[in-house]
């Protein structure tokens, strides 16, 4: 262990880490939402397509 680590209060902080972690979670959340939007859109288009096929028969 590096000497300076011995002087750090382990209970406090990790402020910078939390900002970065929360940022990473935000990015993940953003892409997850895009994924969810594409998935929903795909199911919507598919249901429209199957409905029109049923109407034609």
């Amino acid at each position, binding site marked *: 262990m590096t000497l300076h*680590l011995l002087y750090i209060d382990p209970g406090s902080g990790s*402020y910078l*880490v*939390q900002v970065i972690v*929360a940022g990473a*979670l935000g990015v*993940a959340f953003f892409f997850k939402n895009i994924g969810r939007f594409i998935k929903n859109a795909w199911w919507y288009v598919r249901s429209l397509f199957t409905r029109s096929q049923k109407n034609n028969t």
Partner: protein
Amino acid sequence: MTQQITQPLDSSFRDPSGFVFEKDGTIYRQVNKIFRDDFDNFIGSGCYDQLIEKQWLIPHEEIDKNFTGSPGWYKTLKPQRVPYITYPYEWCFDMLKDAALLTLQLTRECTQFGIILKDATPFNVQWLDGKPVFIDTLSFERYDESKPWIAYRQFCENFLSPLLLMHYSRQPLQSLSSAYPDGMPLSLTRSLLPWRSKFSFHTYLHIHMHERLSSRSAGKENQKENTLLFSKKKLFRLLDSLYSLTNSLQWKGDATTWGQYYEEANQRDDYVLQKKKVTIEWLSQLSGTASAIDLGANEGVFSFLLAAKNMKTIAADSDHSSINRLYQKTKKEREKNILPLLIDLANPSSAIGVNNKERISFIERTNCDLGLALALIHHLSIGKNIPFGKIAELFRSLADQFIIEFVPKADPKIQLLLKGKKDIYNDYNQENFVHSFEKYFLVQKKQEIGNSGRTLYMMKRHG
């Protein structure tokens, strides 16, 4: 007349906001003036009432009296008493997981009231009526939305680290928690976790990346940190991520030989049935027995008998899988009287922490009305080479009265224990057993269990 000064408990010294003390057998918590604003805000905002309604926090009543005579006194609280204090290194995996989830839920709930939890240590959680409950009423401070969660690192070290290590290694690692009561250093967790844990996004963020970034920035003067702004939305993301990670962790340890103990024992004629019959009969003759400890409880078949008699029962066993299963069972059946605990009687939890007084030893904490030691003595005596005299000495400090089963050497289970090891147990016989226990106990009853060759004893501590 000199005024008697009441001292804080040996475990209560870290937080200047107040301390816990005992007076005339009652536990009190003093709130110091320094914490007045935060405490009044916690009560006044409705946060306390909400947490009490959800049964997440220990309720208290306010006493308008300065028992300690300290000039920093603001208020005295009398919290509901927790019948038996336990420590995280005595909890099974699922108990630690539930305590972690409670801590996160509590933190999220408090923010609605403009309050946040400033500590995230499992020592602030205890077990009441089969459920985890937060006990530190002075851990709630005013929430500043621009600041990150002060207890984030503490949560990762105290809850997430042991849970992740047990999840991935499939080994009970409670002894690591007792070696690091202030939390497992993230560098240690990171080095012990398998490489594949990096593929878990949340594990990567909260352990691997957390440790790397904090070890790089540690010791460097970082003025930027004070200017970094956080938000409630970011805090919720962080808490949700910790919650979903914690909730996804599971105890996947292999079933041990003890897993099928009762299944196998039940097949031995009507041995377990006979034993239950005698035990139930003896229990029905007892009066004023409020607390009990079932030593070597396994999956708690006999602990449930004690609980049914309304005894607050500690079900202790050294086998992690058995205790974890018992905990799941008590949760499912909403059994309020059973407290499953991971205790190795050959090495019970010792006193640890500052001055070796901060956390009390298992023996010092335990003094029940009744003890149960069924099919256990031979495991301690022959399995662990502990003489009867030392076992009797241990039992004397745990309970006032005992129901003990003696298994003779000719029993197939003892023969199994002796297989592959030299029989040096010439002193192992019923006569020596009774003689050793009579030093501390008075034999009240004795009955053979059917045709099993095993004998049940009821004993009472002298004096």
